[in-house]
């Protein structure tokens, strides 16, 4: 078995699962002020993902670590070339984490208002930047043997912005659905109706993204070669349409599940299109970082494969167990009674 391909698949899966799980936290974070009319509403939204957001974020750390271990050259160049956007993203993630913890530690309305805005901003910035970064990776970074020739401004090209908007819209929809599923009463109904409203602009951005991708990237080349791969984008589109249909049928839980599939499908579409590149070069195809020229040695890949196949299933098992423990809706009574709640 070609371990490079195994790690390419794992790399894609780690990113996909990360966006699926942290996506609803980022979305709910962006929306919690809009959805929550009162302080209690906002606390309910934050507590709806309170027990799980930290574990969800670890998928990002693992995706980063796996890139470092399996494709060190990609890790080194991706992180140094995208220095400023990654820095802003990092600041976003740092602020978000402490905001959840700090927000309810003072009764003052000013204090809580400040952390509310910190949550909104620190959820929006990473969502947007992930999209911009991946859009630019899909399109290829301006690099050759001499190094990187891009800049922060160059990353904000139209395709990068469309990708950024796509990620923001996907997560907004995902977050609204999550809140609808995890809360009760008015709050839940507001989230559900917002999810319906948001679906339209999401569709518009998704169509724009799919169309633009044809001109801005070479992602579709792989699909031309092996049309069977089209199952990924088709799944994404079907799940996106399904989200709206299920919402219409009043089944928010199933709509949320469909939204999960949409996100996995979108990430899968991008990753499959990249193969065998991890980061294509837009200047010189020979300078592209592929799963072969940027990877670790065979020995390291073997060790890491052993570790991944032993421990990732264990992680998945206890994560499923945790979601079961915290299943059910979060209510005002529960938040008020729980002194440990955010």
């Amino acid at each position, binding site marked *: 078995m070609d371990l490079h391909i195994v790690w390419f698949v794992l790399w894609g899966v780690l990113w996909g699962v990360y966006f699926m799980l942290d996506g609803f936290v980022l979305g709910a974070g962006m929306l919690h002020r809009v959805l929550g009319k009162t302080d209690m509403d906002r606390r309910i939204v934050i507590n709806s993902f*309170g*027990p*799980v957001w*930290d*574990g969800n*974020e*670890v998928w*990002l*750390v*693992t995706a*980063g*670590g*796996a890139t*470092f*271990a399996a494709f*060190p*050259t990609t*890790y*080194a*160049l991706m*992180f*140094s*070339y995208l*220095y*400023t956007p*990654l*820095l802003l993203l990092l600041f976003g*993630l*740092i*602020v978000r*984490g*402490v905001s959840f*913890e*700090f927000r*309810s*530690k*003072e*009764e003052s309305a000013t204090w809580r208002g400040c952390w509310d805005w910190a949550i909104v901003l620190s959820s929006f910035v990473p969502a947007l930047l992930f999209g911009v970064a991946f859009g630019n990776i899909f399109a290829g970074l301006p690099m050759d043997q001499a*190094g*990187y020739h891009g800049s922060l401004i160059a990353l904000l090209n139209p395709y990068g912005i469309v990708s950024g908007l796509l990620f923001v819209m996907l997560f907004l929809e995902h977050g609204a659905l999550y809140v609808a599923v995890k809360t009760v009463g008015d709050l839940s109904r507001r989230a559900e109706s917002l999810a319906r409203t948001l679906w339209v602009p999401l569709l518009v951005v998704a169509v724009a993204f799919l169309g633009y991708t044809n001109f801005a990237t070479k992602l579709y080349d792989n699909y031309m070669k092996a049309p069977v791969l089209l199952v990924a984008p088709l799944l994404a589109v079907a799940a996106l349409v399904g989200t709206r249909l299920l919402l219409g049928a009043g089944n928010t839980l199933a709509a949320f599940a469909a939204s999960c599939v949409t996100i996995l499908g979108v990430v899968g579409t991008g990753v499959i299109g990249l193969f065998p590149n991890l980061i294509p070069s837009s200047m010189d195809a020979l300078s592209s970082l592929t799963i072969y020229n940027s990877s*670790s*040695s065979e*020995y*390291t890949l073997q*060790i*890491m494969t052993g*570790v*991944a196949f032993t*421990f990732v299933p264990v*992680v998945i098992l*206890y*994560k499923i167990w*945790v979601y079961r*423990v*915290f299943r059910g809706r979060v209510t005002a009574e529960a*938040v008020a*009674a*729980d*002194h*440990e709640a955010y």
Partner: protein
Amino acid sequence: MDVLTLSRLQFAITCMFHFIFVPLTLGLSVLVAMMETRYVLTGNEMYKRMTKFWGKLFLINFALGVVTGITMEFQFGMNWAEYSRYVGDIFGAPLAIEATVAFFMESVFIGVWAFGWDKVSKRFHAVSIWLVALATNLSGLWILLANGWMQHPVGYVLRNGRAEMVDFMALITNPFGLLKFGHQIVSGYTVAGFFVMGVSAYHLLKARNRDFFKASFGMAAVFALVASIMVGVIGDFHAADVAKTQPAKFAAMEAVWNSCNNAPMHLIAFPDEKNECNLVTALPVPGLLSFLAFHDTNAQIRGITSFPKDERPPVLPVFLSFRLMVGLGTLFILLSAAALFLSKNGLLEKYPLFLKLLVLCIPLPYIANQLGWVVSEVGRQPWIVYGIMKTSDGVSKSLDMSQVIGSLLGFTLLYGLLGFVDIYLLAKFARKGPEESHVGASNAFRN
């Protein structure tokens, strides 16, 4: 100032800031787990209140430890791309393993513990804090194995223009990493022991919740004494290993300029880097240094001057940090022994001055931890990987000054602000008694 210097400064600042929160997390997770275990075993409600009170402080501290940890992972690629590329084949593995086996467990079960009081059984709730403690310590193990490899590279060959792993077992049994891990873990326990003793002492001085804080104090005193003794014992082995594997660092730690046999240890010394000698040396104990390093009073200690000038670490900061760390370590053993004695004999409240002293001592183990990292990291210079790669060769090539200045300013401002808020909150909740520490509910304490 250049990209290299700024990147080093940024790495130092972000690392040291991260490390304000890590040691307490390491130790307090274990202490809180012990408290909750006592609650489960005895059914005594006081231990439940203890778990909740110290647990709240644990969570406030934990939050910043976690979020600043992500910075560390990102920074290798962002600022040290050449390093990451050169050693990623071997250095990336422990980081990825840390995320997979430790970080997941830690962050999932901290959620269960913080939010699961009514969702899981009493027993399992206690198990979940033990899993957090285990994962936190396991996380430290993998990070220090990674750092240990930078300090004393093993199990690799230089091939295809980089360091490639050939022996994973060598990496995970690297004595340097394991000793450093041992030394660090118990240092974290010392921080937690003194933290709990200090906060308890504050409340005992105010004569509030006396039974509660006496019991907390008693547990912490045992914990701190055992931990601080182990810090010394493992630290001693660690230093002996450094003498073998990193002679230049060892020479700087002790300010030995010229190689000599039967090296004495000077109780008082002060290095003069310019003239490559010591300004003062007094009170020598003959042969002690040779003995400590090689368990042989006649063994040779290599002096700093025996290394080429461009392979010497800065002597003064390493020497001073090491002396101060050892001095503080000794003080911790004495203080915690006295604390345990007074606590066992019910004499604590008879000595308010001692209690006041313990409140003031809360920051000292933190300082000792930071000093230890200065010895370790500054002492490794100019190498980023000892003997293989210079720090100056590891820095990213694609960065320009404005990027690093921007990030350095950003980190300093953001970390400064968050650190201030976090310490404010820690102090606020530490000052409140166990009955008042709940926010968001106006009613009195409920179980």
